[in-house]
């Protein structure tokens, strides 16, 4: 299992599969399936021309980049020059990017082909893929169910084979949650590892761009291309380029993997059963399983929604109706409006101490708790989403929707990394195993994910 990307790349590099043909395949697949899945909201008309150009370059002896002709879907909150970065919102429905985000510059320089812009929850505010102004996305791995969110289109596109890899963003689980529901691989990198320059904000202190892929190798490869110090922004970790694909197959012999009883408390037993089996399998592969204490984990949820709302309120002040079409409050969906109003309220002078400051204190508490646990183990393994995805169109209260995020939020609050790989299924619906690692622990996380994937 898990050889799709590696094999695809080899045939592209060897010429066994032409880059133009690869783009045709993606476009055909999108043509055939997108009407039902709704994973893309804009197709890049220049994709074929670019494929021809790269092919020509390689034919004339030019060096093939690391992503050599792979087709990439991009979440609609990342600026790609000439394409629309709508954030799946009416506010930005006509906003055409005037510049490339730094991750886009990086993937283009490695010969990636951007195939189009993915659907998403509006402004990344959602965990179901249903809040897009361009309609909900279906789950190709469990039709009729939500694909998860907010990187709904990016996950569904990969799951449906419409593109080879995709870029999503993760603020409280928005890569890991849909990766889990769609049965693919997703990774939220350490905060500050991947440039955010050009990413339209949900919450600046939590947002991180990361890869979605059918397999662990693809995620590692895409991460390798986008990660590393960025001179072009303030908040960046001083990290040199690292190869995440190197050593990915080293296995889990002797790796210390933490689990927590807290996960069981918060998770649907059917989901937990799949996870228990997965962890048992890792133990069987030679990993040492260690119980770690995460007593305050669930407190992250409230703290998260307060912090997100305040930062989101601030970030959306520029959508004032003067420069980018319509004023956000006038045209946005309920969840976006709810967060703006909440953020505007709790950042007021009289409420700051009561809500925002306390939320920041809880954040510090969660960070410490996870850091302490990760001193005792190499990674922590557990479920990604506490319950199975609901059927599209089911009415849920905001709190019920928020509850999808219990297990993914802590990694964002702590700034650590976390990846998801398919653990198994419950009644045909995928369930993802989440592997969380310390800051800059991506190599270990990917290695554990790969060991699990390879053993299936």
């Amino acid at each position, binding site marked *: 299992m898990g050889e799709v990307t590696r094999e695809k790349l080899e045939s592209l590099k060897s010429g066994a599969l032409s880059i133009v043909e690869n783009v045709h395949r993606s476009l055909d697949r999108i043509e055939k399936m997108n009407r039902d899945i709704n994973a893309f909201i804009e197709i890049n008309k220049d994709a074929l021309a670019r494929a021809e150009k790269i092919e020509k370059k390689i034919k004339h002896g030019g060096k093939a980049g690391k992503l050599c002709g792979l087709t990439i879907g991009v979440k609609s909150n990342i*600026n790609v020059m000439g394409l629309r970065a709508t954030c799946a919102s009416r506010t930005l429905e006509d906003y055409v990017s005037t510049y490339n985000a730094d991750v886009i510059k990086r993937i283009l320089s490695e010969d990636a082909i951007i195939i189009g812009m993915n659907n998403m929850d509006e402004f990344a505010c959602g965990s179901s893929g249903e809040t897009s102004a361009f309609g909900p996305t279906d789950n190709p791995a469990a039709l009729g169910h939500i694909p998860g969110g907010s990187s709904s289109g990016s996950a569904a596109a990969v799951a449906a084979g419409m593109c080879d890899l995709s870029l999503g963003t993760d603020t409280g689980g928005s890569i890991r949650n849909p990766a889990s529901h769609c049965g693919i691989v997703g990774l939220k990198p350490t905060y500050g590892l991947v440039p*955010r320059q050009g990413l*339209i904000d949900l919450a600046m202190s939590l947002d991180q761009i990361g890869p979605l892929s059918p397999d662990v190798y693809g995620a590692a490869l895409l991460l390798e291309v986008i990660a590393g110090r960025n001179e072009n922004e303030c908040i960046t970790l001083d990290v040199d380029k690292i190869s995440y694909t190197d050593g990915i197959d080293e296995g889990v012999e002797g790796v210390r993997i933490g689990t927590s009883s807290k996960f069981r408390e918060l998770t649907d037993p059917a989901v937990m059963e799949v996870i228990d089996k997965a962890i048992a399998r890792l133990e069987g592969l030679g990993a040492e399983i260690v119980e770690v204490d995460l007593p305050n984990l669930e407190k992250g949820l409230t703290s998260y929604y307060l912090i997100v709302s305040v930062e989101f309120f*601030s970030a*959306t002040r*520029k959508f004032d109706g003067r420069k*980018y079409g319509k004023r956000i409050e006038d045209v946005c969906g309920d969840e976006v409006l709810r967060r703006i109003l909440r953020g505007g309220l709790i950042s007021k002078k009289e409420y700051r101490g009561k809500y925002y400051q306390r939320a920041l204190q809880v954040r510090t508490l969660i960070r410490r708790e996870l850091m302490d646990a990760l001193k005792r183990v190499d990674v922590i393994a557990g479920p990604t989403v506490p319950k199975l995805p609901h059927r599209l169109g089911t009415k849920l209260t905001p709190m019920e929707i928020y509850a999808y995020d219990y297990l993914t939020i802590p990694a964002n609050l702590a700034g650590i990394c976390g990846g998801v790989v398919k653990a198994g299924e419950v009644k045909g619906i995928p369930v993802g195993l989440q592997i969380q690692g310390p800051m800059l622990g991506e190599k270990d996380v990917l290695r554990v994910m790969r060991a699990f994937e390879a053993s299936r």
Partner: protein
Amino acid sequence: MKVLIGFEVHQQLMTNQKLFCECPTNYQDVAPNTNICPICTGMPGSKPLPPNEQATNSAIEIALMLDCKVIANQPIFIQRKHYDYPDLPNGYQRTSLPIAKDGFLEGVRIREVHLEEDPGQYDPTAGVVDFNRCGVPLVEIVTEPDMHSPEEARKFLRRLVRVLEYSGKVRPEAGGAMRVDTNISIEGGGRVEVKNINSVKGAYRAIKFELIRQKSKLERGEQVIRETRAFLESQKITVPMRVKELEEDYRYIPDPDIYPIIIDQSQIERIRAKMVEAPHIREKRLMEQYGIGMESASVIASERELADLFEAVASEVDPKFAATWFRTKLKKVLNYMKIRAAEIKFTKMQLVDLLKMITNKEITPEQGEIVLRIMAKKPEDPRKLISRLKIVPLSEKEIESAINEAINENKKAVEDYLKGREEALNFLAGNVMKITGGKADPREIIKKLRKRLDLIQRGESPK
């Protein structure tokens, strides 16, 4: 009635690049919306670069000149101050927490010094915004309410402007570079804040108006409410700001996209070692070191370049003589010709030569002034200038003969003087000046005239 007045002063810092991006700062020299990029126009997804170090260092230097304690070795967060206005592309302005505190200038305590970004320029009539200025760094200086009259406030503000100019770290041109908010309260009344002031003169007028307004309210037994008012430059009055502007809550949050500034002690010491001596300190030193009076020292220290020139000259000629000359003649010529000390083109040695010629009585001080005027226009060796213009002091003989001529032709004035009318002497001296074509030293003439007339008085004939 006890009056309390304080200020918040904003001034643009002189840097090459904006505070959070690499766009140039010469916003007045270029066509609208040309010095811009995704960062300073707040395009969706753009993130700031780290704060411009040149701006931070400039603010630190100014803070040190104001005798502030710079906040060392702890995080100084950049805050987002949210408000909705067309000139603000992000919907918030970035402003730092204090980078320095507890300073002192001329009897006024400086509460704190901040760093912020300037918004763009909105033209409400045309409905257009120019973002060239957006992101230009500002230093904000907040004082304690330590001034007690409009005059005191004006004096302080002038002194503060002088410190800022001295630092060489602020944008010199007047073009709206300085912005002042002031708060005024009278014992028994609420604190009133006045915004929208653009000059020292404006601040003086706004405060004067406010004191009259508040005093008459209190005298009538009415209340002075705590409020924010706007100064209307054209009418020289203050008016209440719209209620909406008052209710504004800026919802400050630390900007998550920027690491806090951390200033380390060695950085402060490096700046301190090279920093410009503050004008009020220099003024005192000039008085002590050169034994000159307060009035001269104050004139000399009014501009940094003038003080530099003085100190260069004072090592070559008698400092007291030089000081008097700077205060009277040099300042007069500069004012008259509307040139700033920084724009002086003649060299220190040319000025030294000129002053030496005067002290050696090769030329009179009046002739010196004429030479200076020409030198200020077009620098030249004063000695050459004198010979070219044929400026030479008259010989004793020529002066004597001119005096004789004046006395002989103005018998009436002579009689008047002898009867005790002092003004007649001035008349006669004027006559002598006319006869000599202005080449004689008037003080010398008066001295000689008086001596001669006294001789006549005593019935002695001239020798």
